């Protein structure tokens, strides 16, 4: 059996097992919902972190998504994939959270982009101990900062579309559902997001590539 077949079968097995857990939860077995929460929390966290850009908000999104999922579980019964469904709830809530955050930040004096995630996400902490040179370290930090700024400069819809399509591999219809938009408009949103990211990042990416080619970066 090849790896792709195994992967498809394991996805089907999870979906079937999810469906059973949903049925049991609806029948009043709360522990069955625990299985769903424990199984899907990591994936939802990854989506939430990429959308909100910080751990604090991502954790809130994850909790809220599962709470709302439980409350709306009766509406889910006819659907087939719990993972996709709770993902969608999380994406919707993340959009609300991003909007709230933007309002908060617009009112604050100091920009928060640089201290978004405290020490745990300090670029210095993420560089392996054996990082080759101080220049490379500086460039990596600078590039990361610029990438975060470029992502933060996208509109909510653009960021959602990009995260869901590029990083999470969601289908256009699914993203369109979250954005409450048509498929064509969603495709355009993905395009606009990539285009804006490219405008912001291509110069710095090319400079880095040139430096590497010339051997000024180890």
């Amino acid at each position, binding site marked *: 059996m090849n790896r792709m077949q195994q992967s498809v079968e394991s996805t089907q097995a999870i979906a079937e097992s999810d469906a059973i857990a949903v049925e049991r*939860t609806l029948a009043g077995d709360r522990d069955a919902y*625990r299985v769903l929460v*424990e199984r899907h929390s990591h994936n939802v966290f990854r989506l939430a972190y990429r959308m909100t850009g910080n751990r604090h908000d991502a954790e809130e999104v994850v909790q809220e998504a599962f709470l709302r999922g439980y409350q709306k579980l009766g509406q889910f019964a006819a659907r087939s994939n719990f993972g996709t469904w709770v993902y969608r709830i999380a994406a919707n809530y993340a959009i609300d959270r991003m909007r709230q955050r933007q309002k908060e930040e617009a009112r604050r004096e100091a920009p928060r982009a640089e201290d978004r*995630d405290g020490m745990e996400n300090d670029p210095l902490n993420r560089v392996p101990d054996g990082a080759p040179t101080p220049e490379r370290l500086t460039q990596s930090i600078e590039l990361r900062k610029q990438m975060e700024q470029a992502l933060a400069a996208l509109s909510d819809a653009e960021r959602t579309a990009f995260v869901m399509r590029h990083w999470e591999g969601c289908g256009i219809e699914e993203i369109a559902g979250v954005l409450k938009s048509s498929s064509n408009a969603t495709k355009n949103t993905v395009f606009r997001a990539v285009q804006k*990211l490219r405008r912001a990042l291509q110069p710095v990416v090319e400079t880095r590539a040139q430096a590497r080619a010339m051997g000024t970066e180890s």
Partner: protein
Amino acid sequence: MKHMTEEELIAYREEVAEQRTAISGHLAVCEECRGELERIEAVLAALDTLPVPDPGANYGRQVWREIAPRLPEKPGRWWQVWMEPRRLTAAGVIVALIVAAFVAGRITKRGNAGDNIANKEQVRERVLVVAVGEHLGHSERMLVELSNAEPSDPAQKQVNISAEQRRAEDLLQENRLYRQTALEEGDAGLASVLDELERVLLDVAHSPEVVTPAQLEAIQKKIAGRGILFKVRVVNKELQQRQEAREPAPAQNDSTKRARNKV
């Protein structure tokens, strides 16, 4: 040769292009478009290096521990959505505001329309100020207790902070509600302090129930390092002052006016 547009290349790269075969065919023979696609891919590849923090192997369990106490007995009938404690609290606040605004309206009904609106706003804000003040007081007490906690016996290897942890979990829910309300009210300063308080509450709620003295010290340092106790006290004081400043001046009601007229 007609080249591919940037939109077509991005759609191709993100696998949302309708004419994939035609674009593939073109790319096979057009060096310029291949170069353009490579430049797009280089940017996307750089973005792929952005890390996502690992929430830890026990994250699923942790999420369950956070939400389990907040789940209703049974899931999802439509009317149960409205019976959720958070919504009931919000509904309670709204009802209280409406009643308070109505009463205020009755008391000040002889004023002009502008005055009535201003009074309703004041009453609404006063209710928020009182509720948030109380919440900040509870949070401050919990944080003070946690900051002063220490092992009863120096030889004790573990300290139980489960009580503070549970209180932090409860306060977290209230805090979110008040932060959102403060934002809606346009009170950015209050929303900002509530946001910082939320992070501290989240840290405490996520701590283990039983900690070593070293872990306890780390939690206490975190609380002290963020200066949250000071901020909470300052905001609470400001709220009290705001409330006092808005208290209506004495001897301005109808009966005193009547009494004054008699003289």
